[in-house]
């Protein structure tokens, strides 16, 4: 099914997940080429979020395999997958309301170093991550709010912090779950710009319902429906695909 010529960074084979009789992801063969930006689209309930949860270890597949950089990560726990270079953002902003922005970044930066095991150490040890944390906050334009609590941020700023956190994990592959969901036009354009900047040296897979976002960012688009891949290709090719038009607009328009 792959149309990319880049060597694959992520590959799933017959990936399947059922919930008591209902198959949310059904035998998905997905290949993501290294260095590409890949969009996952599809109607609600198509299995996009389930697929994300499978790829990042938050759900265990019922069957099938996931290989990341040639390594089998099927059934691995999230905290073991992250250090391999596969990070994700969340659809619903899930930040630590009372922690400062910088603390968020320090926690993310420390987790890869094994420092989180040395629990008796004072938080001051985290000071060594101060500069790198600030750097990531600058990247997303939040440096001047470094010491504020995350709870005080606006919606758009929270989404930006989500991105900074994902970047701090230095992922080779970044999964973004609806990075522009609920944003106004201006924030959407700023996020597109941001993703265009951070894609350098990385592979990005994102879910989004906003076709403007998909069209401006994605090298390749995969359309999911009822847990299966319906179509795959460039944005223009997929948009012209009759099965896709039917899935999105209903039989009468086909």
């Amino acid at each position: 099914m792959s149309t990319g010529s880049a060597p694959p960074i992520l590959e799933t084979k017959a990936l399947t997940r059922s919930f008591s009789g209902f198959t949310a992801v059904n035998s998905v063969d997905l290949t993501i080429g290294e260095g590409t930006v890949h969009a996952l689209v599809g109607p609600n309930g198509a299995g996009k979020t389930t697929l994300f949860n499978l790829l990042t270890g938050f759900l265990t597949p019922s069957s099938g395999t996931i290989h990341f950089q040639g390594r089998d990560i099927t059934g691995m726990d999230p905290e073991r997958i992250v250090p391999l270079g596969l990070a994700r953002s969340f659809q619903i902003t899930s930040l630590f309301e009372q922690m400062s922005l910088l603390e968020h970044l320090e926690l993310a930066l420390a987790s890869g170093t094994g420092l989180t095991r040395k629990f008796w150490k004072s938080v001051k040890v985290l000071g060594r991550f101060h500069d790198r944390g600030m750097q990531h906050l600058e990247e997303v334009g939040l440096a001047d709010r470094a010491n504020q609590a995350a709870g005080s941020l606006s919606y758009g700023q929270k989404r930006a912090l989500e991105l900074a956190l994902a970047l701090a994990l230095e992922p080779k592959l970044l999964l973004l779950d609806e990075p522009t969901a609920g944003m106004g036009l201006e924030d959407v354009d700023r996020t597109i710009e941001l993703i265009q900047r951070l894609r350098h040296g990385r592979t990005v897979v994102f879910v989004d319902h906003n076709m403007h976002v998909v069209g401006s960012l994605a090298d390749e688009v995969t359309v999911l429906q009822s847990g299966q891949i319906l179509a795959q290709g460039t944005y223009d090719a997929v948009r012209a695909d009759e099965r896709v038009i039917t899935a999105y607009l209903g039989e009468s328009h086909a």
Partner: protein
Amino acid sequence: MGSFIQYTLQGLASGGFYALAALGLAVIFGVLGVVNFSHGSMYMLGAVGTVVALDEFGLSFWASLIVVPLVLFVFGVLLERGLVRWLLKLDPLYNFLLTFGVTLVIVDLVKRRYGSSGMPYDTPAGLRGQIALGGLELPTYQVFAALLSVLVCVAVWVILVKTRVGMIVRAATEEPDRSRALGVNVAMWVTPVFGFGIALAGLAGVLAAPTRSVTADMGTNFIIILFAVVVIGGLGSIFGAVAAGFIVGLVEAFGQAYAPAYAQVLIFVLMAGVLLVKPTGLFGSGEHS
């Protein structure tokens, strides 16, 4: 004025029991996602354990303050390793039912061994009588219990804010999935946090022993109020659990003083009121899933 201060003290003392136990409930819920129904019976075990420690082992109150929570920590670790752990991947309801079952077993075992009538426990020597504070005669033990609970809550707070384990536990408590996605090994903290939460309930029980009627059933009413505390403070909020513990203690004390028939009802009126105004509780973020 004098009676006002006395009721406040009484409220802070019993509020301290709620705050300690609710703190334990909150960290367990946060890190494991388990609503530990057996928390009331752990509080009871703390109180009964204190009585038994004196009667059968000659252990003083001061020794019990350390030993009983430690024993309950070990008990909590065994409970987590032996039972709770195996249900963590299932719907949280299973562990709620499991800990409910554990409660029934514990309460009946205690009844079988020690009967169901009250076990008297004298106020420890040195904490008896009254203490003169600013022209008021206050019960020494209540001053002690209130101060110690506040102290332990503050100490736990400092650990949570100032150390790395605190940062991890706070992170895992507020957003477990988020923490795992940042590469934090939440699983590593599950067993010690469960034991620690149980130990806090046990400590509340030790402190309650001299002031309450110590029976096998004393945890039953306690867990109901404790759930109200956690709902008022906001499920998953550590600070909320402690604050609401003291608030509920005060409401109960003033209720008993001015409207004894409605003392218990007041707590649930407060809970309903909070839920109407802020469904996530006073300090809950509402994004915990």
